[in-house]
């Protein structure tokens, strides 16, 4: 989009929980920001998108994505991963640090930033590691990484096993105002496990992964965060007890937030029954009771965020014996449709609730949402604040998606923009399709 060019989204049903807007209106975009929201905006020189009967919402902010670059470009690259994001309506991703090398020092962070600058098709924020090579032994230099621009720290894929080290990490994170994202897993309990512990593991003859292996670590991290008074975000919550522990912590006023992924509110362990390696995820698909608890947690607000945990793997890594196959599924291109199909259309969330979980809340948690406000600039002139994600407020970044809420489609291998095809939803019929993705004011994807 050239400077001063204008884009007008006409007549769409706007869903913007930040401003409590749930109505048909127009949105005008100028210079990569939203400049006007209202009825019957008329302009002669604007490019127009007719959004009649469509939902218009802020671009999704997916705070759990593995882009694999650098190191495993055969699985995904920054370019392919962000292209997949745009296709799925995601305009901002948070990239996890378990790359090769890991994001555990300034040099590696700079390398990643340069690749992002050159190749990213959407906004990418970066998570730094908590410990060197995510080994849970030696701290990274949080201050330096923060200064260089990380959005959070996490050893995702692993949990910091050492309690004392984790407490110190939280205390430091508090000091430097960095969000800590916890992958809650006790690997002594999950060792060699492949599926949920219970009837499924017994019937398939596979080692089981218990709920305890997750929620004992959720419990520990909440206790330590309370002690450190740090901000804690719990990744990919999958079981009932974790939801209960988080609810309790929130009632106590502990500053904890939580996310889940579409697979945990839409699929239960029965999906694994034919040794389908595309159903092999970590944490594993749980019981129907756990799925119910996750849905209820989303409804009650205990779970703040839906994120994909997009984890691309090659065909070779999935087309092998179940116990040897990699954990993880891709999700950027299906998360919105799965959420519409399984949550909105089943009455668990309304559209406002959905946008909160997938755009506004993650933007708030990451500190990239700012409510509209006025401020005095250095010359003392009163200005409207500009920038920010997760909302359609005037002045915000023009990250906007236009969605056909009733359009049905089938998930096919051939349709993915991601380099990998390991989706848990292959063959499934979903409702809701992204028609346009506008990223920083530009039409970055069009159906």
């Amino acid at each position, binding site marked *: 989009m050239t400077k001063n060019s204008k884009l007008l989204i006409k007549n769409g049903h706007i869903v913007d929980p930040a401003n409590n807007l749930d109505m048909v209106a127009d949105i005008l975009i100028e210079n990569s920001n939203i400049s006007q929201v209202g009825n019957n905006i008329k302009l002669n020189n604007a490019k127009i998108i007719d959004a009649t009967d469509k939902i218009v919402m802020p671009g999704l902010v997916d705070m759990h994505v593995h882009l694999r670059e650098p190191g495993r470009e055969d699985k995904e690259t920054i370019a392919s991963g962000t292209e997949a994001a745009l296709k799925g309506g995601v305009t901002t991703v948070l990239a996890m640090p378990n790359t090769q090398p890991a994001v555990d020092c300034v040099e590696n962070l700079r390398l990643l930033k340069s690749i992002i600058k050159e190749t990213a098709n959407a906004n990418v924020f970066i998570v730094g590691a908590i410990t060197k090579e995510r080994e849970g032994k030696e701290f990274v230099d949080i201050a330096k990484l923060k200064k260089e621009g990380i959005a959070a720290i996490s050893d995702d894929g692993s949990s910091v096993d050492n309690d004392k080290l984790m407490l110190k990490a939280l205390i430091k994170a508090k000091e430097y105002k960095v969000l800590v994202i916890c992958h809650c897993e006790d690997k002594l309990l999950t060792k060699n496990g492949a599926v949920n*512990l219970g009837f499924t593991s*017994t019937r*398939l003859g596979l080692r089981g992964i218990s709920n305890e292996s997750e929620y004992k670590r959720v419990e520990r991290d909440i206790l330590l965060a309370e002690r450190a008074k740090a901000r804690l975000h719990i990744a990919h919550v999958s079981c009932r007890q974790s939801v209960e522990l988080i609810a309790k912590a929130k009632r106590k006023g502990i500053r904890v937030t939580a996310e889940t992924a579409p697979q945990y509110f839409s699929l239960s362990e029965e999906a694994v029954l034919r040794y389908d390696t595309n159903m092999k995820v970590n944490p594993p698909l749980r019981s129907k009771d756990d799925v119910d608890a996750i849905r209820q947690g989303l409804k009650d607000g205990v779970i703040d965020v839906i994120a994909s945990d997009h984890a691309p793997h090659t065909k070779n890594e999935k087309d*092998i*014996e179940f*116990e040897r196959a990699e954990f993880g599924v891709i999700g950027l291109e299906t998360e919105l449709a799965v959420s519409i199909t399984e949550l909105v259309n089943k009455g668990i969330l309304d559209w406002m609730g959905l946008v909160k979980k997938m755009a506004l809340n993650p933007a708030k948690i990451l500190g990239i949402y700012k409510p509209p406000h006025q401020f005095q600039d250095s010359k003392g002139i009163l200005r409207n604040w500009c920038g920010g994600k997760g909302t359609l407020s005037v002045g915000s970044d023009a990250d906007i998606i236009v969605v056909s809420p009733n359009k049905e489609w089938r998930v096919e291998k051939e349709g993915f923009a991601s380099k990998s095809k390991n989706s848990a939803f292959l063959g499934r019929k979903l409702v809701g399709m992204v028609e346009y993705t506008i990223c920083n004011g530009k039409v970055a994807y069009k159906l």
Partner: protein
Amino acid sequence: MAWTKKDLLGLEDLSREEIELILTTAESFKEVSTREIKKVPALRGKTVVNLFYEPSTRTRVSFEVAAKRLSADVINIAASESSVRKGETLIDTGRNIEALKADIIVVRHNASGAAEMLARNVGISVVNAGDGWHEHPTQALLDIFTLKEKLGKIEGLKVTIVGDIAHSRVARSNIWGLTKLGAEVLVCAPKMLIPAAIEQMGACVTHNIDDALRDADAINVLRMQFERDEENAFPKQLGYFKNFGITEERLKKAKKNIIVMHPGPINRGIEISSEVADGLNSVILEQVTNGIAVRMSVLFLVAQGRDTKDATGNSPSL
């Protein structure tokens, strides 16, 4: 009824009628092994490949004998774990065997689900000869065949399985097969060796061997695989014999004609005493003999099942 399945992967997938068909077919094949010339031409011109990723003598030999008595050509491939790690994937190996125009792959693998994965990726028949802790359908079928031969029926029988249930594919296949045929199954082991939610498979659980024996019509004694105890879940060998070993003294408190089975190889003095293993109640060697008839039946039926599929075009053909 006619057999329509290309593969035999486990007893969980089979209906009662399908299990009964295998057993009836096995009855008619049993006589072949008593002939002067132990051979029928049922699979003449067919090639059976025994693809074994785990060391096994008795199961492999039993399949080999069964295939040869049906006049099939038999090829044995012993693939060691290290060659798998270095070399081609199971799917590629399977496709190569298919390209050799073999008809049936009999596969033994240490990963649960391996037989199923192989079957999905080749057009030829796959018979599961044991996959990880998952299933060992022909072992359970021969156990059931032997029981039926001895007691005349399966419906209403009380069968106890004792030993390491958690890591046993024999136990899982027996539970599915026996319960489908109307038997009651009781599993008996120390707590660490009972897998989660086993009751949902239809079995009852006890940790007391005397309770497990009291009303049983038959007992299936599993081998304690001490060499595989990675998780330190096993009791010490002597302690196990004391608390769970099948001895004459314990059998005195059981039904007089209780059938004693064991899938072999037996560890005398660990899970079973020599007196019991060699005693009047033991049918351990008859199981071995029956294994041939049951495997002849399975090979014969899956070959037929595949032919049916070829005719209807449901499955890739050669």
